[in-house]
């Protein structure tokens, strides 16, 4: 998702300059939700579309060689555009991702690398939960209005539910892949088909294709 509407919403809440907005974006959504460079391209696009405008500059700060920093504020059109976005429908996220496809199309010799890949994704999901946990502590420490805090908690809960569903699916996939790999090794030691052999249509490893 583009950072455009997130930046516009933050500017409507309070004008700010690029670096400040990048920090606020990270505080609000976590470090990995948006790339920091996306803030500047979003501001460029919002400026071109006349949804935000320059509201002045502040000095370069302690680093005197740096250029003055431009402060952005929302235009009336920007506020209207944001309200329209807020009331518009939000598309459901895509169900299939690359890992789904890899598992659906994997061959027996791919099982071990896929297990490692699934582990990697589980760790990545847990790292996102860890980031959310740190955001939660930041929110608890903040002195924001209760209403704003609750809205952010609700948004955070949606993210947790999404990561939980993802982790559960990854765990199921990993457990099944590990079981199939182990069974294939047992078959191998008994002189059955090897993991690199072409699976029979109804063989245990053939079931990978039905995931």
């Amino acid at each position, binding site marked *: 998702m583009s950072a455009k509407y997130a930046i516009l919403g933050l500017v409507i809440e309070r004008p700010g300059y690029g670096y400040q907005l990048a920090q606020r974006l990270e505080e609000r959504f976590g470090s990995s939700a948006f790339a920091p460079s996306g803030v500047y391209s979003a501001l460029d696009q919002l400026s071109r579309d006349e949804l935000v405008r320059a509201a002045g500059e502040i000095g370069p700060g302690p680093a005197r060689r740096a250029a003055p920093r431009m402060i952005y504020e929302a235009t009336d059109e920007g506020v209207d555009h944001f309200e329209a976005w807020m009331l518009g429908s939000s598309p459901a996220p895509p169900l299939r991702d690359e890992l789904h496809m890899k598992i659906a199309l994997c061959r027996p010799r791919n099982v071990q690398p896929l297990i*490692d890949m699934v*582990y990697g994704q*589980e*760790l990545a999901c*847990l*790292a996102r*939960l*860890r980031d*959310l*946990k740190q955001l*939660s502590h930041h929110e608890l420490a903040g002195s924001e209005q209760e209403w704003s805090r609750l809205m952010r908690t609700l948004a*955070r*809960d949606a993210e*947790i*539910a999404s*990561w*939980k569903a993802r*982790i*559960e699916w990854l*765990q199921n996939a*990993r*457990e099944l892949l*590990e079981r199939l790999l182990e069974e294939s090794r047992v078959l191998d030691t008994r002189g059955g088909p090897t993991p690199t052999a072409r699976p029979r249509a109804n063989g245990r490893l053939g079931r990978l294709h039905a995931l």
Partner: protein
Amino acid sequence: MDAPLLTLEAVSKSYWRGPHELRVLTELSLEMGAGEFHVVWGKPGAGKTTLLKIAAGLETCDRGSVRFAGIDLACIPEAEHARLMREQIAWIRRGGPSSDLPILDYVALPLLPTFGHRRAYATARDAMARVGIGECVQRRWKSLSDGERALVGIARGVARSPSLLLVDDPTTNLGLREREQLAALLRDLADSGVGVLMTVPDMKEMMSAHQIATLSGGRLLAPPEIAPHAPPPERPENVIAFPGARRRG
């Protein structure tokens, strides 16, 4: 350097259903210190209760070792383990008294042999006040809400001022606000120096923890912060596999 409060090294555990082996924990390792709050999430049947029982020394593992403050729980006499369970390790599980006692009696009961009547009841009152159910002392189990019952369990645990709290799915059946209150209470207990290892059925409770992990397929998986003593994993085996010696069991 002081030994970590709790160390599980390469713990494996299986149950047998006839000829079929059901592997519950596979070379699972975990280390936590005093004042740390670890939360482990897992699906039903993932082995969360088994993990806590093994951490408490209430159940033996097939392979690996469990140390509390450097003491190998498999190598101490039963009387010494019973003393640790009275004084240092609190295992808190769901469930209540078999008879409908006043709650104060229920909390004070395990303290009587060690503390005597007067001190046991004073300590039980303090523990109930500490967890926020001071007004429930004369109420009975059947009259309590699920949230209050969970807090009674915590009060029974903290009454003995343990070093380690092992809390088994305390948030099941609780509403959102009660779950948050319970998690905040356990975080406060950890901040006061108690090591807390809690298993949960929902990930929202993980948000109060210092460190989080998931349990699945017998393996504990955690983002790097949960294993500060281990090198960052390139492959998950680095997190979960430690060399371990075979112990009793």
